């Protein structure tokens, strides 16, 4: 697996733009929820921003990304338009799913986000189907499917990786290992020393990478995407990271040792990456501040759009159950 490639300055700055947008979105959503404007469980990706940011810059618009309830970082990284995105989390008719999907199930087909599932592990077998279609049609599209460390213990993970291996499908399986599955620490639920080790059981490459290191993450993704595009089959990437805001909003993370949390916060990947970019001379503080300001303005515009949007009409209950005009 060639890891010789390196991200250039523009790529690194784009990674930062995306990652900071994700953090800003997360902060703002939490405000909205606390203000009672989103009525739903919310699963913050805070701390995991660099993973999808570094992956997405390796993807084409026509590649697909499958994600989960904890997915706004993956969706923003893939380039979902902000207005219908925010509107969906607010359950409005102008949302990508007309408000029917909601925070756990934001999808936007036009952005290559066809499936966001709330069932742990379920996205993996579906990703295989998306990749199979691309393989059949001879396009060199790839599919990235994101899931957590806990998801690697469910049957669908096993069946999906094995099928992808046997069919040599262009799928990148990205395990965002944040160390916890709900309240269960990695080692209490997982027999494997590393999730990457599990790739051996499927005869595919398994790559463990620091998901909080943008360059390392970019390299791992770059190699896996190249392999998939070349028709050489799937890769399992284990991106080690941490989630700062519990499993879902309201979770006080009581099950995480204070020391572990403190160390993680001290090593927050986003400010670290920001400082590194400046230190390396890729950007000035001012330039990055501009990026953040532009993000913030665009996102706030989307929030206002969402808040001003109408809720779906009750008749939407009957629509989209089956094809129009066909009895359900």
């Amino acid at each position, binding site marked *: 697996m060639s890891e010789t490639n390196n991200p250039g300055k523009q790529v690194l700055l784009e990674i930062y733009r995306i990652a900071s947008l994700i953090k800003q979105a997360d902060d703002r959503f939490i405000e909205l929820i606390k203000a009672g404007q989103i009525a739903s469980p919310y699963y913050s990706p805070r701390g995991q921003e660099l993973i999808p940011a570094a992956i997405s810059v390796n993807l084409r618009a026509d590649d697909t990304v499958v994600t989960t309830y904890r997915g706004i970082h993956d969706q923003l990284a893939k380039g979902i338009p902000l207005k219908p995105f925010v509107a969906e989390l607010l359950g409005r008719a102008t949302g990508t799913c007309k408000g029917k999907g909601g925070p756990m199930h934001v999808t936007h087909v036009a952005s290559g986000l066809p499936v966001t599932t709330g069932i742990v592990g379920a996205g993996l077998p579906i990703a295989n189907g998306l990749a199979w279609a691309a393989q059949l049609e001879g396009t060199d599209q790839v599919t990235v499917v994101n899931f957590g460390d806990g998801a690697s213990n469910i049957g669908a993970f096993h069946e999906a990786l094995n*099928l992808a291996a046997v069919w040599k499908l262009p799928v990148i399986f990205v395990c965002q290992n944040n160390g916890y599955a709900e309240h269960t620490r990695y080692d209490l639920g997982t027999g494997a020393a590393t999730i990457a080790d599990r790739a051996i059981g499927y005869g595919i490459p398994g790559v463990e990478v620091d998901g909080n290191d943008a360059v390392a993450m970019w390299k791992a993704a770059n190699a896996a995407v190249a392999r998939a595009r070349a028709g050489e089959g799937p890769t399992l990437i284990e991106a080690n990271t941490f989630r700062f805001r519990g499993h879902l909003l309201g979770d006080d993370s009581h099950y995480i040792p204070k020391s572990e949390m403190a160390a993680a916060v001290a090593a927050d990947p986003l400010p670290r990456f920001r400082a590194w970019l400046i230190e390396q001379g890729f950007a000035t503080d001012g330039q990055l501040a501009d990026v953040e300001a532009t993000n913030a303005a665009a996102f706030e515009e989307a929030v206002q759009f969402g808040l001003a949007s109408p809720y779906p009409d009750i008749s939407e209950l009957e629509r*989209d159950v089956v094809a129009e005009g066909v009895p359900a």
Partner: protein
Amino acid sequence: MSTVTQKKINTAQAINLALHDAMAFDSSVVVLGEDIADAQGGGVFKCTAGLSEKFGTGRVKSTPISEQAIAGAAVGGALAGLRPVAEIMLMNFMTVAMDQIVNHAAKLRFMTGGQTHVPLVIRTTTGAGFGTGGQHADYLEAWFAHTAGIKVVAPSTPADAYGLLLSCIFDDDPCIFIENLPLYFVPGEAPEPGVRVPIGKAKVVQEGSDITLVSYSRTLHDVIAVAKKLAKEGVSAEVIDLRTIAPLDMETVTASARKTGRVVVAHEAQVDFGVGAEIAARLHKELFGTLKAPVARVGAARSPVPFSKPLETEFVPTQSRILAAIRETLN
């Protein structure tokens, strides 16, 4: 569906024919399942024989023993514009794939606000009679019929199997296509090439005036046999083959019930919370006060499928139990 030809084929052949015709007609039709490619014998019941040789192992894929992966690949393929036809070898094995079918295939159109739809077919077979015991012969159609967004089809003849499978493959929403193992080998009238049988339309197999007999899948044939016996006694039974379980064709069933005033529903699934309950509940409401007798329901014994032959024989809705229910309904 009338046909000119006199040629007879069985249901396994009819399914195979439908798959060949669908794949030839539309390159987005793909097939997957355990041992379905020709190198693996073209399916344990040969329903997919010749497909991989004709259409290639890209469109016709044998899979590992991984029903969740099979159903999931079908869902993903459908989202990407394919029309996957997945074979889940036996209906009991769908119990390991329920999440993909019920939480995903059935719901994604709605959950995405119509951005996506999932035009897949899951073919499966089941039914007692071959001594396969407790884990290989259940009828679970009621589960899927209870789920919004899924169509459920269960043909009883080769011609309907052919025509309904074509309709399911080209339907834009997920369809569960239920075959019956013993029926695979029973010859019947050959279908007209390319002619689709509409989903959601029951078939009046035999017209009658004294009582309406509603059934589907293998049990339909026992019902017909009983109806013949009754005819000799001068009882005129109208026999309806539902063919589609969801959506139910209550128009046809109700029209017949209105005419005869008496209805017996028979199926191999459990009676309790089964398809017969939905039909009885609707007839009770739609024809309130006009039926001459309560709708009777006949189904399998309230037990798992037994192995021992004499038990297995009595487990299914036997002709004698169907006949008894009819007699009770007639008096």
